[in-house]
């Protein structure tokens, strides 16, 4: 039996697991939501954070030092690291699309069994924002996805095929949920490890996509 975690604890658990995959020196772009929490769990000093609204060298900031004009892609206040630099939006996306950012960590609404994700639109709903997601998917050397394993109604989010519009034809590299970590190898999902206390049966039950076990 899994110990019941609240939502924040679960998000941090996922973020911590993702952080284990990050080895410096590298540059990482963090998406909105769980990805933002990854910064709190990174252990390597040589990981530099890029935010697409125009800053390389993102750090956290204490309440005292909050500057309303210094924010990340989620419009949350951040700080600047030693050696940080600011640039405009086209230069920022030139970095992303041009393959100069090592890792992008993104949220997703759905992931298919080949690692294709959907994270920017829900048919019939007023979600009309794509932001930098499509750029990060085509440009980052590696893409990691974090999400809750199932929707609020319990339905699987790891599907045979996405029912929402896809974000890119590029397959992501790894997927992290509160139940398990998967990698995409030769275009197919492979279960890498289970989160503490989670059984393989539970994962199978809550996953529509086929996957193999490492």
């Amino acid at each position, binding site marked *: 039996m899994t110990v019941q975690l609240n939502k924040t604890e679960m998000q941090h658990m996922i973020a911590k697991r993702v952080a284990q995959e990050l080895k410096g020196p590298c540059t990482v772009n963090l998406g909105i939501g769980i990805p933002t929490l990854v910064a709190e769990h990174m252990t390597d000093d040589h990981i530099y954070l890029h*935010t*697409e*609204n*125009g*800053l390389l060298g993102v750090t956290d900031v204490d309440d005292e030092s*909050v*500057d*309303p*004009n*210094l*924010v990340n892609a989620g*419009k949350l206040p951040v700080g*600047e690291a030693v050696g940080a630099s*600011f*640039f*405009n*939006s*086209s230069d*920022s*996306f*030139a970095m*992303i*699309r041009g393959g100069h950012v090592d890792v992008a960590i993104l949220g997703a609404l759905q992931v298919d069994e080949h690692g294709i994700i959907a994270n920017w*639109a829900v048919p019939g709903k*007023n*979600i*009309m*924002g*794509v*932001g*930098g*997601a*499509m*750029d990060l998917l*085509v*440009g980052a050397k590696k893409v990691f996805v974090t999400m809750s394993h199932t929707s609020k109604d319990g339905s699987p989010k790891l599907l045979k095929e996405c029912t929402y*519009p*896809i*974000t*890119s*034809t590029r397959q992501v590299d790894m997927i992290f949920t509160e139940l398990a970590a998967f990698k995409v190898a030769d275009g197919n999902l492979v279960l890498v490890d289970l989160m503490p206390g989670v059984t393989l049966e539970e994962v199978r039950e809550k996953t529509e996509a086929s996957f193999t076990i490492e």
Partner: protein
Amino acid sequence: MAMIQHEITDALSCVKSGDTILVGGFGLIGAPLTLIEALTEKDVKDLTIVSNNLGESGKGLGKLLNQNKIKKGIGSYFTSNRDVGDKYQNGEIELELLPQGTLAESLRAGGAGLGGYYTTTGVGTDLAKGKEEREIDGVQYILEKAIRADVALIRAHKADTLGNLIYYKTARNFNPLMATAAKTVIVEVDEIVEAGELDPEAIVTPFIFVDTIVEAKQVLTKKGVVSK
């Protein structure tokens, strides 16, 4: 070669109904809040607004939206203002959604005299529908067109008396790109300094792009938007 304008209403005298207007900022950060406020007080309609977001609900461009002055929005993240979705569902506004990098690059292309460019972003997605696709050296790209406009309303940190601009931290964002891509460029700044006071190596927008400078009266602070 820019003109310093003390009356903000005069600064916007060139704006007319039906214009395409570039508006700087990432949400409210780096948005020309003073100029947007003045625009809400002006009798214009059928505007096409190019901006990453259409502000927040009732704030920044959100005000202009609620006045029904915006015919069409071109941006990357309308979700930040729930009113946009409502108006869209009611058929009260047209929207063109672009990936954020494509929005930025199309503005740069507009300012740089290019017609369009081939990008990998969006290939194979719904946002590529109706766009030309082509393979170059084994990679699939889609064609995106340059964006140019009648007017740009932008925000910078400091201007010198010639019109050279520098920006402040992440308030830079789309502003330098928009400064290049419109017939008339109007900028609000925190401070105007003498020519020669800005480091020539650090000027981000050279003065040839800027037409009119005004001092910002609306400023984003920790406590939200404040009148100066």
